């Protein structure tokens, strides 16, 4: 069969998807592909457009690249609009005069923003929001503006309002209808959304019909409304809906909808058999779909039909879940309750500003739609129930009423109940069945699922649901999540800890011989090194422990991207004398180190080479510094606020307590790093509630908070006990930390550890406060042992000439590592990047530092 020439007009999200589907097609070599784009670049992610204002570049938004098209033999012509289709000759003609013949033509021309015919709409600073060029125009205009008005309070309008807010403008939204998001929300939901958005400082003006835009008095323009009122603004952004980009189709005589849109059948064919239309320009069953997922489905259907398949487009679910100006909003199915005879349940929580409504069928067997504002956790479940027409539970109201005991998912449906055909990922059209078969084929992490099905790689909204489906299928297959730490030990970290203690094992080799196999690896060695340190507190560079340590622990410094190290001396509680500050400055200057204040109230010195570490530490130790263990899975810092000593609100000495705590636990090795903070009053300037151990002073003594963290998944600490005196506070911390070290998994922070304890916080209180396991005295004496055997590893090291040998860069030369190259930035050094390295090496420029 000779190859078939397919011309795709428009390289937007859907046009690209269609081309990508053809590239991935098993008969890809049968197709000759050409695409035209009016825009200066290939497809980018319009859905994520607003992330541009949060720092994403045009580059970041790209969905494909010219090299990908080239590698797959796709011919693309940018910056050239197709202006004519000669249907009889199967030919297209572009603005630049280019002619191209086709066997099949696909129109994927998308839509354009509708600008209402208001006098004055064509002036400067009157903009729309659809392309990267529009973003650039908005940014430029914002620089000369203070106030911005968005015309249109729909989904896109509110997103645009957020963009203007991010650009630093005072923002107003003007809406013609009496409420926001009139298409998706009912009245109650719209009202709550309005309140929440107003609270964020965006002014909302509903039921406003703009008559004209004229010169303003205090601002650039004045918008006059039909009701006689007006609003002054410097910029106007129209977001009053979209219109299908259909002029090309109209010109060549294809059948059009009454109000625009290219009419297509279930195979996405237009009224001319070999011309297809997909995406926002296509009109199916009288409807234009303004979302990307239905467009992707059309792309799939069209590709199927082009290659002889028989998939059909049967409409699409318009449910949406969004964060608008930080407010969670979701709309599912018949959100307005337009189905005749339908019933609804409403849950409204004025205090927490949550609104939920479900619409159910007259016979109470089916969910027809839902509106959620302020809390959208139920979205996945409700959307699936609605789309798959699943049976409603007996008390449907339980679907939206929060359960009293905080038991999650009460009234929800387990993923197990979903049919295989359930769409889990609407962006990439992935069903539950496909995820299950990926699991059967060996996928066992969400990363595997993303790679093999693409679920979760679009908007990301389905990741939680996809993970649940995967886990459910894994457990059905009887796959037990393997908890062995690695191939060398068939035990969990906790089991190894117990073995080490009970059998009093002192070295890795002994443990390996008795309980493991092989030689060990970079997973089990550092884990066991840490356990041995927690139990016996030996010097980490002792001959038998040295090879267990990660490079950071071995060289007692943090390795950076270019193989140099950073040095973080302990500055307990962030308190430092001027003399010590000066020493840090002098040392940094002498060794040409980059200096920075860390997020942990300490000072980090970067860029030291291996052989310089002991020299630098010698000077630091002489000045009274100790190692800060920034390299270890160990106690890091105790942050403090200035507290009662200076602060007019402080009730206890937070700095003194923070220093006391840091001194006590410094050097303690643990399953993951440990961070503390102490605040002098409830204003909480030290952010103690985001730490593993947080202490806050009150009139009645110390309050102890546990198991919080920042980082990837921030978690607030839980109140553990209050009204504590100094002694009791320390006793409780001793017990908690030691219990954590004994029972946590490798790299499990305290928050995850506690959430995994059967009984959680209450259980921990039972063990630590009420001594339910009768282990408290043991936990305390273990801790006492560690505290009494503390040594500064760096001090021990610089005093031992034998150990110093290990820091030589080369065993046979005093030369420096020539891969380490620095350049200057803001008056300090930084590692040269790849481009700079190549340039320097080639020209041997002397500007190297």
């Amino acid at each position, binding site marked *: 069969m000779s190859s078939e020439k397919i011309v795709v007009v428009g390289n937007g999200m859907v046009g690209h998807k269609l081309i990508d589907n053809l590239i991935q097609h098993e008969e890809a070599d049968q197709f000759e592909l050409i695409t035209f784009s009016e825009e200066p670049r290939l497809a980018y992610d319009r859905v994520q457009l607003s992330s541009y204002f949060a720092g994403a570049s045009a580059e970041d938004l790209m969905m494909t690249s010219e090299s990908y098209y080239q590698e797959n033999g796709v011919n693309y012509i940018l910056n050239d609009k197709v202006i004519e289709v000669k249907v009889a000759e199967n030919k297209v003609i572009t603005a630049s005069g280019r002619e191209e013949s086709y066997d099949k033509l696909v129109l994927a021309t998308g839509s354009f923003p509708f600008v209402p015919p208001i006098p004055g709409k064509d002036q400067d600073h009157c903009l729309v929001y659809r392309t990267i060029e529009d973003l650039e125009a908005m940014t430029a205009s914002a620089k000369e503006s203070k106030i911005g008005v968005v015309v249109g309070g729909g989904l896109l309008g509110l997103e645009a309002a957020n963009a203007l807010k991010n650009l630093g403008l005072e923002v107003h939204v003007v809406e013609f209808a009496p409420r926001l998001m009139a298409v998706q929300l009912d009245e109650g939901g719209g009202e709550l959304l309005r309140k929440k958005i107003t609270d964020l400082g965006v002014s909302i003006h509903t039921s406003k019909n703009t008559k004209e835009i004229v010169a303003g008095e205090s601002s650039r323009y004045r918008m006059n409304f039909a009701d006689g009122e007006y609003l002054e603004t410097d910029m106007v952004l129209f977001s009053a809906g979209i219109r299908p980009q259909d002029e090309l189709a109209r010109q060549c005589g294809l059948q059009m909808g009454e109000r625009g849109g290219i009419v297509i059948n279930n195979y996405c064919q237009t009224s001319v058999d070999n011309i297809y239309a997909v995406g926002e320009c296509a009109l199916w069953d009288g409807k234009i779909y303004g979302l990307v997922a239905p467009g992707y489905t059309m792309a799939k259907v069209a590709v199927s039909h082009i290659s002889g398949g028989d998939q059909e487009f049967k409409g699409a679910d318009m449910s949406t879940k969004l964060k608008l100006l930080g407010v969670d909003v979701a709309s599912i199915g018949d959100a307005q309750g337009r189905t005749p005879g339908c019933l609804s349940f409403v849950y409204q929580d004025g205090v927490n500003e949550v609104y939920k409504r479900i619409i159910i069928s007259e016979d109470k067997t089916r969910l027809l739609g839902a509106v959620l504002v302020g809390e959208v956790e139920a979205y996945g479940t409700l959307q699936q129930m609605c789309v798959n027409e699943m049976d409603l539970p007996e008390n449907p109201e339980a679907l939206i009423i929060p359960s009293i005991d905080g038991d999650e998912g009460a009234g929800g449906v387990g993923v197990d109940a979903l049919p295989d055909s359930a769409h889990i990922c609407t962006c990439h059209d992935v069903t539950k069945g496909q995820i299950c078969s990926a699991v059967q084929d060996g996928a066992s992490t969400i990363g595997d699922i993303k790679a093999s099905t693409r679920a979760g790689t679009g908007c990301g909204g389905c990741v939680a649901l996809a993970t649940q489906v995967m886990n459910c299928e894994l457990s059905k297959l009887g796959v037990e999540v393997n908890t062995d730490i690695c191939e060398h030990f068939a035990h969990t970290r906790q089991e190894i800890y117990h073995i080490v203690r009970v059998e009093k094992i002192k070295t890795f080799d002994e443990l390996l011989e008795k309980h493991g196999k092989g030689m060990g690896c970079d997973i089990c060695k550092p884990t066991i090194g840490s356990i041995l340190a927690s139990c016996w507190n030996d010097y980490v560079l002792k001959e038998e422990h040295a090879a267990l340590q990660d490079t950071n622990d071995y060289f007692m410094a943090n*390795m950076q*991207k270019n193989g140099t190290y950073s040095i973080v001396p302990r500055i307990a509680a962030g308190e430092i004398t001027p003399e010590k500050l000066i020493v840090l400055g002098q040392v940094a200057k002498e060794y040409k180190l980059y200096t920075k204040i860390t997020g942990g109230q300490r000072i980090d010195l970067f860029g030291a080479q291996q052989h310089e570490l002991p020299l630098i530490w010698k000077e630091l130790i002489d000045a009274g510094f100790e190692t800060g263990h920034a390299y270890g899975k160990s106690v890091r810092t105790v942050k403090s606020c200035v507290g009662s000593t200076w602060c007019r609100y402080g009730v206890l000495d937070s700095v003194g307590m923070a220093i006391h705590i840091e001194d006590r636990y410094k050097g303690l090795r643990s399953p993951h790093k440990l961070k503390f903070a102490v605040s002098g009053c409830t204003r909480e300037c030290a952010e103690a509630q985001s730490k593993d151990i947080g202490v806050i002073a009150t009139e009645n003594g110390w309050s102890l908070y546990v198991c919080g963290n920042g980082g990837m998944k921030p978690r607030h600490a839980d109140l553990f006990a209050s009204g504590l005196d100094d002694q009791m506070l320390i006793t409780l911390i001793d017990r908690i930390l030691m219990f954590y070290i004994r029972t946590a998994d490798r790299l499990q922070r305290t928050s995850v550890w506690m959430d995994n304890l059967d009984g959680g916080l209450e259980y921990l209180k039972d063990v630590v406060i009420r001594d339910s396991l009768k282990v408290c005295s043991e936990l305390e004496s273990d801790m006492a042992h560690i505290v009494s055997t503390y040594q500064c590893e760096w001090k021990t090291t610089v005093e031992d000439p034998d150990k110093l040998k290990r820091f030589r860069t080369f065993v046979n030369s005093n030369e420096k590592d020539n891969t*380490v190259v620095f350049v200057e930035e803001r008056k300090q050094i930084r590692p040269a990047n790849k481009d700079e390295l190549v340039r320097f090496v080639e020209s041997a420029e002397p500007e190297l530092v």
Partner: protein
Amino acid sequence: MSSDELQWISVCEADELSPLLGVRALLDQQQIALFNVKGELYAIDAIDPFTDAAVLSRGIVGDIKNQVVVASPIYKQHFSLASGICLEDESVSVKTYPVREKDGKIQLGKKC
């Protein structure tokens, strides 16, 4: 290749290469990572091809699926000490060098 074709250069004393702890040597401006694993000697390029940093002598040594490996300390890819091939991406590898112990010295072999 028979050893007579090689010129052997001593780089350090045998006892300077502790078991399982790598060291770095410089041979004609090449940075080479040396290891002693249970008496077996290995020499590979010290430069980690994923980051271009000279860090491989500073990784943890062990075995994965019966191959003796070192883990790059930066992004933790494993390299076979015998072949230099990266276990995670077999299209990537580092050079290996002839190495031996003679008269209490560790020697690297280079072609004459």
